[in-house]
């Protein structure tokens, strides 16, 4: 009873903390200076259609690297926590299996499309990575006993991460800056081959995220 009251007090208290933020909120009419610079820079400096992508991959590239790391940590951590799984057989439906291998290829392709077009259209490495992971999820659902070749998954995961960093170092070596996109000619605005290294970085992110998420799902699936 005391606890319930305290919880109520806590929630009401929090509401009072947040209240001024809500009641006095005014939408700004213009972009902040920083955001305007991003929008302009995305056009003028990076040749990237999707401003969010340019922000994520270059301007705030360090955040994204960190984000990939967080996901990586979660993968490693979950693996560390749950340990290796033990095999146990269960039959799966054949129909689902055949359909799913066909679907699998299609979905992976779609995922690749998403992250290679991250600088042009909504979406990018993360979304593409999730799509790829979904493809694997489909395989897992269709065949409960399916075992992945973990080595390949691991190699993809490790090297995509490593290459991501290597690309970053190239920028550093060329004294432009860590994770710079301008290490590659920026190309023509709005085309697939544009935005410098952004599509490449996003592809590695996509691969890494995809393999990491697959790994997480696989570990959580367990037994």
């Amino acid at each position: 009873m005391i606890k319930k009251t305290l919880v109520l007090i806590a929630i009401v208290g929090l509401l009072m903390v947040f209240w001024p933020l809500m009641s006095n909120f005014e939408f700004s009419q213009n972009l902040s200076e920083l955001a305007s610079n991003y929008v302009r820079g995305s056009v003028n400096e990076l040749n990237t259609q999707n401003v969010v992508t340019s922000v994520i991959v270059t301007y705030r590239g360090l955040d994204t690297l960190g984000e990939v790391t967080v996901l990586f940590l979660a993968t490693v951590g979950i693996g560390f926590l749950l340990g290796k799984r033990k095999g146990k057989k269960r039959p799966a439906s054949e129909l689902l299996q055949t359909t799913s291998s066909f679907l699998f290829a299609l979905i992976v392709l779609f995922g690749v499309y998403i992250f290679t077009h991250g600088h042009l259209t909504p979406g990018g490495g993360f979304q593409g990575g999730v799509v790829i992971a979904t493809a694997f999820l489909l395989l897992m659902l269709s065949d409960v006993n399916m075992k992945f070749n973990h080595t390949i998954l691991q190699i993809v995961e490790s090297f995509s991460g490593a290459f991501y960093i290597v690309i970053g170092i190239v920028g550093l070596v060329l004294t432009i800056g860590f994770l710079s996109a301008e290490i590659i000619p920026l190309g023509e605005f709005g085309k697939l081959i544009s935005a410098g290294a952004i599509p490449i970085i996003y592809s590695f992110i996509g691969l890494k995220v995809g393999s990491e998420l697959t790994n997480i799902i696989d570990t959580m699936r367990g037994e």
Partner: protein
Amino acid sequence: MISVIMIVVLGVIMIVAGIIALHLKNLLAAIITAGTISLLASVIYLILGSPDVAMTEASIGSGLTTIIFLYALNKVQKEDKND
């Protein structure tokens, strides 16, 4: 105007879903209800002009998270059966 109405409707649904998710005895249902909130959130992001976020929320927030929840629940329940 339509977007405002949509947001209000979605918002109400999400809030109700949130409350329900917390009060459902059945964990499976609770997880799925919570996943619905994320899914509806992604619609809101679309309306707010953030398709990137919408995609991410739909795939990660509602999709993957729910799946991981379900797997975890599955593991817990299996643990029960094993004994």
